């Protein structure tokens, strides 16, 4: 009888309580003391765990920078490996706080998927990898070929467009997991492996004889890759966006992991604003330069990210120089690249 009474009571109270509204992502992350970051299950140079479970890579380091800016500690990140097919659902459902997993910014992902791309951390384009013995020198010669790709990507869409636009026939074999795509390509199930060119360079290094394969010169698409957050949380969107811009501005201003402590005494107003250093007036009074406040973060937000992870150029070199990928389009704007950050002021 008691149990029946409590059952009724519980259901009545349950009805009254309905569903508690969730707080903003920033509060969730702070309360948890950990950032949950969606990452590639294994793409050399961008996001891959070693046998001890330590993650390395360009996209992974970006998450560490966000963790350093938000929580003051770059180590407070949990990485969730996601396949191309799972990644957006994981973000939409709130399983992860930020998705940093070589994802292409497209209009439909912005509009109908309910996601927001916080910037383009890496400008990429889709390319083709073929065995040298195939004797193909250009993508235009691929009519009739069988192409292996990963399902649920912009890659499979671009592929259909490219062959249609060039009036060539082709066969596609699409797998859910990248390892299966690679295995099928290596076993000769298809003539061509296609993905973002950075991915091609990264994967070919894992082959037993990388020299037996070549990347074709054509780039058939624009693939602006960047971190993604859920729509509807402007504060969190700003935090991720401005962490990226802070890393870029740091490179531009020459602030590195090694010299960021010295830079705290810099008289350069741009560096002072980046690192939240108080500027001194001639009469000795001080003025605040704290831009972290506007994001809901502490004054050391950018300092922590640069000190613990490095500036954009450092992150790029640390992770991608091993793949022999040049800065190219990802050089700073003043060096002829596309990486351009709005000013902190």
């Amino acid at each position: 009888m008691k149990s029946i009474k409590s059952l009724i009571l519980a259901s009545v109270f349950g009805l009254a309580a309905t569903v508690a509204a969730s707080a903003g992502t920033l509060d969730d992350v702070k309360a948890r003391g950990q950032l949950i970051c969606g990452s590639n299950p294994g793409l050399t140079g961008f996001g891959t765990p070693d046998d001890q479970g330590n993650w390395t890579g360009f996209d992974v380091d970006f998450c560490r920078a966000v963790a350093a800016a938000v929580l003051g500690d770059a180590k407070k990140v949990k990485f969730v490996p996601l396949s191309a097919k799972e990644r957006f659902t994981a973000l939409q459902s709130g399983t992860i706080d930020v998705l940093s997993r070589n994802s292409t910014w497209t209009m439909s992902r912005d509009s109908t998927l309910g996601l927001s791309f916080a910037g383009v951390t890496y400008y990429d384009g889709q390319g083709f990898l073929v065995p040298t013995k195939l004797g193909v020198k250009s993508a235009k010669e691929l009519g009739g070929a069988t192409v292996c790709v990963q399902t649920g990507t912009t890659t499979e869409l671009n592929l259909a467009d490219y062959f249609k636009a060039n009036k060539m026939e082709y066969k596609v074999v699409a797998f859910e997991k990248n390892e299966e795509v690679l295995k099928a390509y290596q076993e000769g199930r298809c003539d061509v492996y296609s993905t973002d060119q950075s991915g091609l360079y990264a994967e070919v290094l894992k082959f037993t004889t990388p020299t037996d394969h070549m990347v074709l010169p054509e780039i058939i698409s624009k693939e602006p890759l960047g971190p993604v957050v859920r729509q509807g949380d402007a504060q969190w969107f700003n935090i991720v966006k401005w962490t990226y811009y802070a890393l870029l501005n740091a490179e531009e201003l020459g602030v590195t992991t090694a010299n960021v402590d010295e830079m705290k005494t810099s008289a350069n107003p741009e560096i002072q604003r980046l690192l939240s250093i108080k500027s001194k007036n001639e009469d000795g009074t001080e003025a605040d330069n704290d831009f972290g406040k506007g994001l809901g973060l502490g004054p050391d937000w950018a300092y922590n990210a640069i000190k613990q992870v490095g500036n954009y150029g450092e992150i790029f070199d640390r992770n991608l120089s091993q793949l022999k990928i040049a800065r190219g389009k990802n050089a700073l704007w003043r060096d002829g690249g596309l990486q351009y950050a709005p000013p902190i002021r």
Partner: protein
Amino acid sequence: MTAQSPGELRQPPSREAGPFAWFYSPRVRGWLTQLAVFLLLAWGLYAIIFNTQANLKKLNQNFGFDFLTQAAGFDLSTSLIAYSSNATNARALVVGLLNTILIAVLGIIFATVIGFIVGIMRLSRNKVVAGAATLYVEVVRNIPLLLQIFIWYALVLKPLPGVKGAINLFDMIFISNRGVTMPHPLFEEGAWLAPVFLFGALVATWFFRRWARKKQEQTGKSTPVWLTSIPIILLSPVLGLALAGWPLTFDYPSLAGFNFKGGMTIVPEMLALLLALSIYTATYIAETVRAGILAVSHGQSEAAAALGLSRGKALRLVVIPQAMRVIIPPLASQYLNLTKNSSLAIAVGYPDFMYLGGTVNNQTGKAIEVVFILMVVYLGLSLLTAAFMNWFNSRMKLVER
């Protein structure tokens, strides 16, 4: 507490009277419990719908099926109907559903044939035959299916040559690591006569069978029904085509550049999946068949032997018909398992319904809608299979008079 008379043992006296007496009436109790369960259920449903709506709104998304009419944009390795990247998402899902049905139907046929043979083999008096069947069942059914799919995929792909060194059968069928490529039949004006003739042959067979049974019941003489009707059924469409003046041509495959042009191809992904599903499910069917046969009392076989029936005939005419009644219900669950297990197709990139649900979800971001469609369709497929098996079961069960 007052003293209790023996008749009141079940109800303590304090509950008999007082303002709360109604609370202890079984009727009221029953109603209250049902009300509580109903309220809980309603609250759960309300919470799910409210929560989903609120979350979708936060993401600036709405619930709707408009995406079904948008262009899919991706190509597929194999399809039973015309499909290109210009087709709609709805058509892409239909391609997946047809591929699922194809693999399920073929898988069920192969698994049943293998399963019956192995199940009977396990009961063989020949130690080698029985041992081989036992080994097969014990090994295959104890290895996870996903692993077997991968193994079969590797076994299908690895030994096969590339396109240029394809195994050539009479310049018509080519076997390579791109699949089995064979001539594609093209039907022209007048080809409708073939299915009409086939249908006619099937109807004729049915009447023939009825007549043969009647004759046997009256005269005791048996007529070889299947021996005469199978050739007729097989030949009837050919006869139809011949009468229509052969409105049938074949598109022969030929090597052109990287691949075969023309013809039709069974992709290796499908072969691997079909092999894995049928060989795995066959082990369970074999066990079901064995159990069914063992369930028929030994006296039945002895009686058949006493009548002078051979062991094979006794099995076919006496034991199996009775065993079927035990076999069919678990057989139905195995068919359902096979249909649902076919969703592992995605592991080897065979575009089944699950695969396309995932791809469409990923390209459009309509997770809730796609999962809803997936659930409804798989449920529908399973219910259809179950309904068919129930019908079959009621036909086969012991007719009691």
